[in-house]
Structure formats: C-alpha cells, structure tokens
C-alpha cells in the first residue's frame, strides 16, 4: 500500500485567503537529539497536517575524520577506530578491516583463524539484528520485545569479554590473525548461548510477528522495489527484503563461508515488515553457521607463521628461535613494520547492515595511504526521503528503525 503525495488544493481549504498551497505546509525539526533517532542524526520534515511531503536528512554531527586518521595509524592500530564505526557490531568491522588489509597484502589465513573470524562475525550479526529489530519494536510501542532482545545481547557481550577482555570495543583481529585464540571457556559459553537463543527468538516472534498493532504499523510502510534497491545501492537486509538475492557470504565466499551450509533470507515485499522478517530469519541462519563452525573448528595455529612477518609470534617462538626474536623486534619497532606493495585493492564482507568494504591504497609502509570505508548506513540513509514521502509522521520512526542507521558509521 503506497500512498501518493497529496495534491494541494487551495479551494478545499475554505475561503481563499490568498495563501499559496505551500503556505499550509509546516516544518518539523526531528533530531539531532531525539530519543527515536537513537543516534545523532537530523531530519527536517516538511509536513502537510500529519502527512510527510518531503524529508531532508542531514548528517555529519558525529564526523570525526576516521578516514583521515586511517592515513596516520598502522593497520593494526586502526582496528581500534573501526570498533567505533558500527558500534552495535564492532567485531564485524574489525573482521572487515583486516579482511581488506589481508587482501591488499595477499595474505592467506590459517583455517582455524578463518573459522574463528566466521564465528565472531556471525555472533556480531546476531547482536546487531537483535538490537535493530528490538529498536523497531521499541519505536512502534513494543517495549517488552526490546528487552527480550537486549537480554541475549548481554550474553553475546559476555562471550566477547571472555574472548578478548572487552565487551564493547573489541579490537579483536590483527593482520594475519586474531588477538586471542578461543579457550575452552569461550567455546562452552558459545554452546550455552546457542542452546538458549532459539527460545528467545521464538518468544520474540510470538510477541511481534503476528501482532496486529505491529503489523499495521509496518506492513506497506516504506516500500522499496527491487529496481530502486539496486539503483540506489542498497545492500544487506534492506536489499534482501526487496528481493535482491545478493549476499557476499554466498556470492563471494570469504573466510569459512564456502564450507558451511546456510540459506540467504530474502523477502519480496520491500516494506518495514519484510525487513523485520529478513532480520529474524538471518539470526536463525547465523545460529546454524555458528553451530557448524564451532563443531568443525580446526586445530593448529591461529595466526599466520613467522615467515609471513605480519602477525606477532608467540612468546615461546620469541624466546626459543632466532626468527621469532627478529620478527618480534621488527614488528614492535616504530620504524620497522612490514612491507606493503604500492598497490590498491577493495575487499568487502557482508556486515550485519550490508556490504562493508574498505578500499586501501598501500605506499610501502604499514600505514595506509588512503583507507576508504564503504559504509552501508550512508546509502541507506540516502534512501530515507524516498521511502517516507506520502506516509505519516508516526511512520518516520518505523522506517528509520528498519533501515538501522548507525550515525557513527554514517558520519565516520
């Protein structure tokens, strides 16, 4: 159900006061500080009564020059900045950044590392979708639903804390590996999580999927057709809810995704409700991926070998071999580091929000000459005026929530 923008007819407003039809419009400033924007972004809405005639999104309130900083920090230091991009699934950004760095260097990871990165990236996807679907529920009046989702996010935070010591800003990956290997306790916690979360997802679906109020608020609202989704560069769940089947995990299998059995969740309606359903289904598929990867976790070293000269050697290697000592020394000194070709490349992963890629230009040393981030949020926020035209003011929060715009990633 798509509602066309209203026609302005002065005569229908009673006696002619000489006012032009545009004079009956009023402007509403939505944000930058508003509970329903969740983050710092601003919308200037042009309204005709309660109907949105046009929306002018404005961004940049959180711009902190991440790409400029990327030209001054080494590949391993910059991972701390990527944490702060999409901060509701930071570990997925870490994986994306070092995936791109390793593509530039031509580095082949160990199979254990590939599986570990796959597991943490999928846990990040679950935690991202829990929050974004939870927020859609919250904004449309389902507070209980949000709390169910947030409880499981806490469990994922606990897993990450056990894994690398940080709950929120994980900075987990390194060039050629990860900062910490999986311990038995981590595996035990992930197994326990896998057991409890399907029940939570069932509860969430029972609360909202056939809830009359929620369905009325989201079905037919903010419809994006398949052609428009591709033309406007939408990716991830937003595009898949519109019938685009593109998923980099299937189409360009990276890490361990080629070995694992999972389905790509798609819908064809393209409205807020379809985006909600796609995210719910993607969480279930992510659980299957985590389950398979965890049960088939290969042994062996987690980082690439000393001969690659990129990942720090273990303490045992440092103290018992000359290669280990040299490698440790070279990687720790400020004026050493590893060599990077005078080349440029782009590599992307399927982040929870869509295609998250980095275009990196190398100039010999281990600091990028240019570190461009391709943020899915920017392209999704650009969709917003197109999706909201003709809908009512109360639909603004539903559409905004279903696009899952993270301002820190938006502005970088």
């Amino acid at each position: 159900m798509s509602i066309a923008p209203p026609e302005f007819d002065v005569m229908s407003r009673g006696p002619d006061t000489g006012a032009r039809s545009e004079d009956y419009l009023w402007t509403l400033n939505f944000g930058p500080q508003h509970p329903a924007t969740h983050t710092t972004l601003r919308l200037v809405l042009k309204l005709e009564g309660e109907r949105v005639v046009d929306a002018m999104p404005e961004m940049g309130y959180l711009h902190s020059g991440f790409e400029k900083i990327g030209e001054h920090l080494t590949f391993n230091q910059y991972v701390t900045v990527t944490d702060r991009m999409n901060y509701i699934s930071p570990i997925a950004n870490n994986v994306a950044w070092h995936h791109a760095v390793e593509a530039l260097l031509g580095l082949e990871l160990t199979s254990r590392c590939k599986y570990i990165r796959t597991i943490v990236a999928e846990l990040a996807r679950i935690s991202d979708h829990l929050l974004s679907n939870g927020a859609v529920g919250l904004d449309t009046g389902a507070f209980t639903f949000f709390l169910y989702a947030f409880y499981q996010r806490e469990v994922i935070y606990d897993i990450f804390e056990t894994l690398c010591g940080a709950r929120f800003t994980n900075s987990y990956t390194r060039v050629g590996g990860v900062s910490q290997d999986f311990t038995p306790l981590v595996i035990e916690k992930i197994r326990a999580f896998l057991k409890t979360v399907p029940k939570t997802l069932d509860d969430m679906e029972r609360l909202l999927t056939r809830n009359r109020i929620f369905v009325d608020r989201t079905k037919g609202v903010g419809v994006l057709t398949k052609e428009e989704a591709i033309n406007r560069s939408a990716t991830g769940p937003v595009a898949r809810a519109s019938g685009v089947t593109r998923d980099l995990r299937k189409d360009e299998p990276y890490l361990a995704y080629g070995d694992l059995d999972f389905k790509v969740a798609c819908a064809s309606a393209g409205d807020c409700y379809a985006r909600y359903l796609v995210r719910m289904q993607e969480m279930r598929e992510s659980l299957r991926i985590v389950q398979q990867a965890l049960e088939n976790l290969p042994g062996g070293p987690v980082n690439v070998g000393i001969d690659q000269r990129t990942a720090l050697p273990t303490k045992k290697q440092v103290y018992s071999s000359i290669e280990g000592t040299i490698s440790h020394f070279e990687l720790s000194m400020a004026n050493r580091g590893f060599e990077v070709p005078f080349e440029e490349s782009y590599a992307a992963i399927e982040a929870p929000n869509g295609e998250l890629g980095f275009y990196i230009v190398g100039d010999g040393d281990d600091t990028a000459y240019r570190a461009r981030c391709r943020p899915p949020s920017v392209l999704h926020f650009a969709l917003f005026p197109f999706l909201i035209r003709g809908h009512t003011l109360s639909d603004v929060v539903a559409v905004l929530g279903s696009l899952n715009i993270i301002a820190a990633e938006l502005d970088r």
Partner: protein
Amino acid sequence: MPHTPPAVDDVVAALAERFGAVEPSVYRGQTRVVIPAEVAFEAFEVLKNQGFDLLVDVTCVDYLDYKGAKHRYGLVYLLANTATNQRLTVRVFADDPDPTVASIVPLWEGANWLEREVWDLFGIRFEGHPDLRRLVMPDEFTAHPLRKDYPLQGRGERHNFPVITRDHS
C-alpha cells in the same frame, strides 16, 4: 585471500573498442580500467547497459607525492553485476586547478550522496549533480580535509565558526 570474481574480459574489450586504450590491469583478481574524464559518462552508460547495475562505491584518492603518480586525483568507481557477481573498478583521473568530472547520478541514484561526500572531502566538482552540497562537514567549512596537503590537526577553521549564544539562538 578473498574470492576472485568472474572475469570481465568481454566488458574490457568492449570498452577498449569504443574508447581506445583503457589500460586494463589486474591486482589480486580485481580488474581495473582507466577511462579518460571527457568520455567518462558515456563509458558508464556502456557499462550499465553491459549489466553492471549496482554502484558499490564512489571515492577518490589524492596522489600528491605518491610514487609514479601522473595525476593528482584518482576517482574510484566500484561497480558490480548483481546477476553474474562480476566486479569492475573504474578509475577516472582529474587535476588541479579545477578538478571536474561528470556526475553519474542520472545513471545510478546511489551516486548522489557518494559524490557529495567526494566533493566535500576532496573538492572534486561533479558536473550535472542535482544537489552538490557538503555532506559531512559543516556548510561554513572552507577546506577539503581529505586532501593530502591538509594537515591532520586541521588549520584552525573552527575558530572562525560563529558562536551562538542562548540569547541569539
């Protein structure tokens, strides 16, 4: 190593036939072509008709003092074909004093904000863009901060920002 996308030789050949030498190169399985700025829009039209329906990204690199660089600004257009999963990187170069390229918003609506961001941070003018305003920096800002001659600490532009007091807001 990332996945190697399917080959795009036929597309590169079609481009070369129409626009002369497009300097195709391959690095880590990614094919890149260079298109002269004057014919960039026509070339993108050809590419869109060849099936590259998804514009993944538009960005820019400032090659000031970069080893072996012939031009200062190198724009990067990342294209993808959603049916065949082919990928192609298109480079268009521009130079001072007035770096200008044709806008591709008429072909891909997704280019709108991406081109605005490049204009904001690099000062590349996109001819034919419907709404070329700054995207992330404030409107009063005068510099283009991702250029290589712009210092990391800034040049003190923020000192000139108007101070709004409670009485005048």
